[in-house]
Protein backbone atom coordinates (compact mmCIF):
# COMPACT_ATOMS: atom_id res chain seq x y z
CA UNK A 1 0.00 0.00 0.00
CA UNK A 2 1.42 3.33 -0.97
CA UNK A 3 0.63 6.91 -0.02
CA UNK A 4 -2.36 8.47 -1.73
CA UNK A 5 -4.04 11.90 -1.73
CA UNK A 6 -7.02 12.25 0.60
CA UNK A 7 -8.09 15.83 -0.02
CA UNK A 8 -6.87 19.03 -1.63
CA UNK A 9 -8.41 22.48 -1.19
CA UNK A 10 -7.52 26.06 -2.00
CA UNK A 11 -8.14 28.46 0.84
CA UNK A 12 -7.54 32.20 0.31
CA UNK A 13 -5.47 31.32 -2.72
CA UNK A 14 -3.30 28.81 -0.83
CA UNK A 15 -3.31 25.10 -1.60
CA UNK A 16 -3.56 22.67 1.30
CA UNK A 17 -3.57 18.91 0.86
CA UNK A 18 -3.52 15.72 2.90
CA UNK A 19 -1.86 12.45 1.91
CA UNK A 20 -2.52 9.18 3.69
CA UNK A 21 0.11 6.53 4.16
CA UNK A 22 -0.10 2.83 4.92
CA UNK A 23 -1.26 1.75 8.36
CA UNK A 24 -4.27 1.66 10.62
CA UNK A 25 -4.98 3.06 14.06
CA UNK A 26 -5.08 6.56 15.55
CA UNK A 27 -4.17 9.45 13.24
CA UNK A 28 -0.52 10.48 13.27
CA UNK A 29 -0.31 13.81 11.47
CA UNK A 30 2.92 15.20 10.01
CA UNK A 31 3.75 18.83 9.22
CA UNK A 32 6.84 19.41 7.07
CA UNK A 33 9.30 22.27 7.34
CA UNK A 34 9.82 25.35 5.20
CA UNK A 35 10.90 24.56 1.61
CA UNK A 36 10.37 20.89 2.29
CA UNK A 37 7.69 18.51 1.07
CA UNK A 38 5.16 16.03 2.44
CA UNK A 39 7.25 13.36 0.68
CA UNK A 40 9.98 13.92 3.27
CA UNK A 41 8.06 11.85 5.81
CA UNK A 42 7.91 8.55 3.95
CA UNK A 43 11.23 7.08 5.18
CA UNK A 44 10.60 8.56 8.63
CA UNK A 45 7.21 6.84 8.86
CA UNK A 46 8.73 3.57 7.67
CA UNK A 47 11.32 3.81 10.45
CA UNK A 48 8.73 4.73 13.08
CA UNK A 49 6.21 2.06 12.23
CA UNK A 50 7.48 -1.21 13.70
CA UNK A 51 4.48 -2.58 15.55
CA UNK A 52 3.03 0.86 16.33
CA UNK A 53 -0.62 1.05 15.26
CA UNK A 54 -1.24 4.38 13.54
CA UNK A 55 -2.58 5.90 10.36
CA UNK A 56 -0.08 8.42 8.97
CA UNK A 57 -1.33 11.60 7.35
CA UNK A 58 1.26 13.90 5.75
CA UNK A 59 0.12 17.49 5.26
CA UNK A 60 1.12 19.42 2.15
CA UNK A 61 1.38 22.99 3.44
CA UNK A 62 1.86 26.40 1.78
CA UNK A 63 5.47 26.59 2.89
CA UNK A 64 6.35 23.63 0.63
CA UNK A 65 9.33 23.92 -1.73
CA UNK A 66 8.47 26.43 -4.42
CA UNK A 67 5.81 28.21 -2.32
CA UNK A 68 5.10 31.88 -3.00
CA UNK A 69 4.58 32.85 0.66
CA UNK A 70 1.87 35.35 -0.31
CA UNK A 71 0.00 34.17 2.80
CA UNK A 72 2.55 36.02 4.92
CA UNK A 73 0.57 39.20 4.23
CA UNK A 74 -2.66 38.00 5.79
CA UNK A 75 -2.25 34.86 7.88
CA UNK A 76 0.24 32.71 9.75
CA UNK A 77 1.50 29.14 9.83
CA UNK A 78 -0.58 28.12 12.86
CA UNK A 79 -3.84 29.22 11.20
CA UNK A 80 -2.89 27.39 8.03
CA UNK A 81 -2.03 24.27 10.03
CA UNK A 82 -5.28 24.52 11.99
CA UNK A 83 -7.21 24.63 8.73
CA UNK A 84 -5.26 21.70 7.32
CA UNK A 85 -6.20 19.65 10.40
CA UNK A 86 -9.90 20.26 9.66
CA UNK A 87 -9.39 18.49 6.33
CA UNK A 88 -8.44 15.21 7.98
CA UNK A 89 -11.00 12.44 7.77
CA UNK A 90 -10.49 11.71 11.48
CA UNK A 91 -9.28 13.69 14.51
CA UNK A 92 -5.51 13.83 15.00
CA UNK A 93 -4.12 11.86 17.95
CA UNK A 94 -0.44 12.67 17.51
CA UNK A 95 0.91 15.74 15.76
CA UNK A 96 4.50 15.72 14.51
CA UNK A 97 6.26 18.71 12.98
CA UNK A 98 9.72 19.50 11.71
CA UNK A 99 11.38 22.93 11.90
CA UNK A 100 8.93 25.57 10.62
CA UNK A 101 6.22 22.89 10.79
CA UNK A 102 7.24 22.07 14.38
CA UNK A 103 6.91 25.71 15.35
CA UNK A 104 3.48 25.86 13.70
CA UNK A 105 2.54 22.92 15.94
CA UNK A 106 4.04 24.74 18.93
CA UNK A 107 1.92 27.83 18.20
CA UNK A 108 -1.21 25.66 18.03
CA UNK A 109 -0.32 23.93 21.31
CA UNK A 110 0.09 27.29 23.03
CA UNK A 111 -3.30 28.51 21.85
CA UNK A 112 -6.18 28.17 24.33
CA UNK A 113 -8.26 26.82 21.42
CA UNK A 114 -5.78 24.05 20.75
CA UNK A 115 -6.82 20.79 19.06
CA UNK A 116 -7.39 17.76 21.31
CA UNK A 117 -4.22 15.70 21.05
CA UNK A 118 -2.73 12.80 22.94
CA UNK A 119 0.78 14.00 22.29
CA UNK A 120 2.98 16.08 20.05
CA UNK A 121 6.50 15.63 18.70
CA UNK A 122 8.56 18.65 17.68
CA UNK A 123 11.63 17.92 15.57
CA UNK A 124 14.22 20.71 15.42
CA UNK A 125 11.97 23.57 16.52
CA UNK A 126 13.46 26.97 17.36
CA UNK A 127 13.00 29.19 20.38
CA UNK A 128 14.05 32.73 21.27
CA UNK A 129 14.88 33.01 24.96
CA UNK A 130 13.47 36.09 26.70
CA UNK A 131 16.96 37.52 27.18
CA UNK A 132 17.77 37.33 23.45
CA UNK A 133 16.98 40.87 22.26
CA UNK A 134 15.36 41.66 18.92
CA UNK A 135 18.12 43.68 17.33
CA UNK A 136 20.15 43.70 14.11
CA UNK A 137 22.54 41.11 15.47
CA UNK A 138 19.60 38.74 15.85
CA UNK A 139 18.47 39.56 12.30
CA UNK A 140 21.90 38.88 10.83
CA UNK A 141 22.38 35.73 12.89
CA UNK A 142 18.99 34.29 11.93
CA UNK A 143 19.45 35.15 8.26
CA UNK A 144 22.77 33.32 8.31
CA UNK A 145 21.13 30.34 10.02
CA UNK A 146 18.30 30.40 7.47
CA UNK A 147 20.76 30.35 4.58
CA UNK A 148 22.75 27.53 6.17
CA UNK A 149 19.67 25.39 6.80
CA UNK A 150 18.39 25.87 3.25
CA UNK A 151 21.81 24.74 2.01
CA UNK A 152 21.84 21.77 4.37
CA UNK A 153 18.36 20.81 3.15
CA UNK A 154 19.33 20.96 -0.52
CA UNK A 155 22.42 18.83 0.08
CA UNK A 156 20.47 16.30 2.12
CA UNK A 157 17.68 16.02 -0.45
CA UNK A 158 20.20 15.36 -3.20
CA UNK A 159 21.07 12.14 -1.38
CA UNK A 160 23.47 9.90 -3.25
CA UNK A 161 23.24 12.16 -6.30
CA UNK A 162 25.30 14.76 -4.45
CA UNK A 163 28.43 12.64 -4.92
CA UNK A 164 28.00 12.87 -8.69
CA UNK A 165 27.67 16.67 -8.78
CA UNK A 166 30.38 19.32 -8.72
CA UNK A 167 30.35 21.31 -5.50
CA UNK A 168 30.07 24.56 -7.45
CA UNK A 169 26.93 23.23 -9.12
CA UNK A 170 25.50 22.36 -5.71
CA UNK A 171 26.41 25.85 -4.45
CA UNK A 172 24.60 27.29 -7.45
CA UNK A 173 21.53 25.18 -6.66
CA UNK A 174 21.54 26.45 -3.08
CA UNK A 175 21.80 30.05 -4.31
CA UNK A 176 18.90 29.46 -6.73
CA UNK A 177 16.83 27.93 -3.95
CA UNK A 178 17.47 30.94 -1.70
CA UNK A 179 16.52 33.24 -4.58
CA UNK A 180 13.30 31.34 -5.05
CA UNK A 181 12.35 31.37 -1.35
CA UNK A 182 12.98 35.08 -1.33
CA UNK A 183 12.67 37.49 1.58
CA UNK A 184 9.04 36.56 2.28
CA UNK A 185 10.00 33.04 3.28
CA UNK A 186 12.59 34.43 5.65
CA UNK A 187 10.12 36.99 7.01
CA UNK A 188 7.70 34.15 7.80
CA UNK A 189 10.40 32.28 9.67
CA UNK A 190 11.79 35.34 11.45
CA UNK A 191 8.36 36.39 12.69
CA UNK A 192 7.67 32.87 13.90
CA UNK A 193 11.04 32.70 15.67
CA UNK A 194 10.74 36.09 17.34
CA UNK A 195 7.26 35.42 18.71
CA UNK A 196 8.15 32.06 20.29
CA UNK A 197 9.12 33.99 23.41
CA UNK A 198 5.58 35.31 23.76
CA UNK A 199 3.76 31.98 23.41
CA UNK A 200 1.92 30.70 26.51
CA UNK A 201 4.00 27.57 26.58
CA UNK A 202 3.57 27.06 30.33
CA UNK A 203 -0.15 26.42 29.76
CA UNK A 204 0.36 23.57 27.30
CA UNK A 205 -1.13 20.37 28.78
CA UNK A 206 -0.23 18.12 25.85
CA UNK A 207 2.74 15.80 26.48
CA UNK A 208 5.33 16.92 23.99
CA UNK A 209 8.62 15.39 22.93
CA UNK A 210 11.20 17.75 21.48
CA UNK A 211 14.13 16.25 19.56
CA UNK A 212 16.88 18.61 18.49
CA UNK A 213 20.49 18.37 17.43
CA UNK A 214 23.36 19.84 19.43
CA UNK A 215 24.90 21.19 16.22
CA UNK A 216 21.64 22.86 15.19
CA UNK A 217 21.54 26.48 16.31
CA UNK A 218 17.72 26.39 16.29
CA UNK A 219 17.55 25.09 19.85
CA UNK A 220 21.17 24.67 20.88
CA UNK A 221 23.04 26.01 23.89
CA UNK A 222 21.12 28.34 26.21
CA UNK A 223 18.02 28.04 24.04
CA UNK A 224 17.54 24.44 25.22
CA UNK A 225 17.37 25.33 28.91
CA UNK A 226 15.26 28.42 28.22
CA UNK A 227 12.80 26.28 26.30
CA UNK A 228 12.65 23.68 29.09
CA UNK A 229 11.83 26.42 31.59
CA UNK A 230 9.21 27.93 29.29
CA UNK A 231 7.40 24.67 28.52
CA UNK A 232 7.20 22.26 31.45
CA UNK A 233 5.08 19.77 29.42
CA UNK A 234 7.97 19.27 27.02
CA UNK A 235 10.55 16.51 27.23
CA UNK A 236 13.60 17.81 25.42
CA UNK A 237 16.15 15.39 23.96
CA UNK A 238 19.28 16.90 22.48
CA UNK A 239 21.16 14.55 20.19
CA UNK A 240 24.87 15.13 20.67
CA UNK A 241 25.80 14.55 17.04
CA UNK A 242 22.55 15.70 15.47
CA UNK A 243 21.82 18.53 13.07
CA UNK A 244 18.67 20.25 11.86
CA UNK A 245 17.58 17.18 9.89
CA UNK A 246 18.51 14.52 12.44
CA UNK A 247 15.07 12.90 12.09
CA UNK A 248 16.14 11.92 8.56
CA UNK A 249 19.87 11.46 9.04
CA UNK A 250 19.38 9.45 12.25
CA UNK A 251 15.87 8.18 11.58
CA UNK A 252 16.29 4.90 13.48
CA UNK A 253 17.58 6.57 16.66
CA UNK A 254 15.08 9.43 16.58
CA UNK A 255 12.10 7.16 15.94
CA UNK A 256 13.27 4.95 18.82
CA UNK A 257 13.15 8.01 21.09
CA UNK A 258 9.63 8.74 19.85
CA UNK A 259 8.48 5.18 20.46
CA UNK A 260 9.87 5.27 24.00
CA UNK A 261 8.14 8.59 24.62
CA UNK A 262 4.81 7.27 23.34
CA UNK A 263 5.12 4.05 25.36
CA UNK A 264 5.59 6.07 28.55
CA UNK A 265 2.42 8.12 28.06
CA UNK A 266 -0.40 7.47 30.52
CA UNK A 267 -3.06 5.33 28.78
CA UNK A 268 -1.66 5.81 25.31
CA UNK A 269 -3.53 4.73 22.21
CA UNK A 270 -0.60 5.37 19.85
CA UNK A 271 1.82 3.03 21.56
Amino acid at each position, binding site marked *: MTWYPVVEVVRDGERLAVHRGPGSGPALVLAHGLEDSWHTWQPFVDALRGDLPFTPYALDLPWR*AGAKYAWVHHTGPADLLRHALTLLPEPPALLVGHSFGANAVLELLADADRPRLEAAVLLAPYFRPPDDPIDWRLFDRELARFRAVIGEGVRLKLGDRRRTLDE*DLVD*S*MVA*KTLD*RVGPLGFVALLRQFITTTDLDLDTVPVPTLVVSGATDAALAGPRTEAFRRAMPAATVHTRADGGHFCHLEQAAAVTTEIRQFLAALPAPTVA
Partner: protein
Amino acid sequence: MTQVMSNRMNELREVVAEVLEVEPEEITETSHFVDDHDADSLRAIEILARLEKLYKIEIPQTELPKMENLRAVYDVVKQYAGWQD
Protein backbone atom coordinates in the same frame (compact mmCIF):
# COMPACT_ATOMS: atom_id res chain seq x y z
CA MET B 1 13.65 23.03 -37.40
CA THR B 2 17.16 23.92 -38.58
CA GLN B 3 20.14 21.66 -37.90
CA VAL B 4 21.44 24.16 -35.36
CA MET B 5 18.12 24.17 -33.52
CA SER B 6 17.97 20.39 -33.62
CA ASN B 7 21.47 20.07 -32.21
CA ARG B 8 20.72 22.51 -29.43
CA MET B 9 17.45 20.77 -28.61
CA ASN B 10 19.26 17.45 -28.36
CA GLU B 11 21.92 18.97 -26.12
CA LEU B 12 19.21 20.31 -23.82
CA ARG B 13 17.48 16.93 -23.90
CA GLU B 14 20.68 15.26 -22.71
CA VAL B 15 20.97 17.67 -19.79
CA VAL B 16 17.35 17.23 -18.75
CA ALA B 17 17.51 13.45 -19.12
CA GLU B 18 20.58 13.25 -16.92
CA VAL B 19 18.94 15.30 -14.18
CA LEU B 20 15.64 13.44 -14.35
CA GLU B 21 17.44 10.11 -14.60
CA VAL B 22 15.56 8.93 -17.70
CA GLU B 23 16.63 8.00 -21.20
CA PRO B 24 16.89 11.04 -23.54
CA GLU B 25 14.43 9.54 -26.00
CA GLU B 26 11.78 9.47 -23.28
CA ILE B 27 11.77 13.26 -23.21
CA THR B 28 9.73 14.79 -26.00
CA GLU B 29 9.48 18.52 -26.64
CA THR B 30 6.16 18.63 -24.81
CA SER B 31 6.36 15.87 -22.19
CA HIS B 32 5.82 17.47 -18.79
CA PHE B 33 8.78 17.23 -16.41
CA VAL B 34 6.59 16.93 -13.30
CA ASP B 35 3.56 15.05 -14.60
CA ASP B 36 5.36 12.73 -17.01
CA HIS B 37 8.85 12.37 -15.52
CA ASP B 38 8.28 12.80 -11.76
CA ALA B 39 10.44 15.91 -11.49
CA ASP B 40 10.31 17.90 -8.25
CA SER B 41 11.37 21.44 -7.41
CA LEU B 42 14.95 20.39 -6.62
CA ARG B 43 15.39 18.71 -10.01
CA ALA B 44 14.01 21.82 -11.68
CA ILE B 45 16.62 23.91 -9.91
CA GLU B 46 19.33 21.45 -10.90
CA ILE B 47 18.30 21.75 -14.57
CA LEU B 48 18.49 25.53 -14.26
CA ALA B 49 21.90 25.46 -12.57
CA ARG B 50 23.32 23.02 -15.14
CA LEU B 51 22.11 25.13 -18.06
CA GLU B 52 23.64 28.25 -16.56
CA LYS B 53 26.95 26.47 -16.20
CA LEU B 54 26.85 24.87 -19.65
CA TYR B 55 26.01 28.04 -21.55
CA LYS B 56 27.68 30.49 -19.14
CA ILE B 57 24.48 32.47 -18.79
CA GLU B 58 22.32 33.64 -15.91
CA ILE B 59 18.67 32.68 -15.88
CA PRO B 60 16.51 34.30 -13.18
CA GLN B 61 14.79 31.75 -10.97
CA THR B 62 11.52 33.50 -11.86
CA GLU B 63 11.74 31.64 -15.18
CA LEU B 64 11.54 28.28 -13.39
CA PRO B 65 7.75 27.91 -13.49
CA LYS B 66 7.83 28.32 -17.28
CA MET B 67 10.40 25.56 -17.74
CA GLU B 68 7.96 22.68 -17.57
CA ASN B 69 8.95 20.87 -20.76
CA LEU B 70 11.84 20.72 -23.23
CA ARG B 71 10.30 23.22 -25.67
CA ALA B 72 9.85 25.76 -22.87
CA VAL B 73 13.42 25.17 -21.67
CA TYR B 74 14.66 25.81 -25.20
CA ASP B 75 12.74 29.08 -25.39
CA VAL B 76 14.09 30.30 -22.05
CA VAL B 77 17.70 29.38 -22.82
CA LYS B 78 17.38 30.91 -26.29
CA GLN B 79 16.30 34.19 -24.73
CA TYR B 80 19.16 34.38 -22.22
CA ALA B 81 21.84 32.92 -24.49
CA GLY B 82 20.85 35.22 -27.33
CA TRP B 83 20.33 32.42 -29.84
CA GLN B 84 19.08 33.88 -33.12
CA ASP B 85 17.54 30.73 -34.65
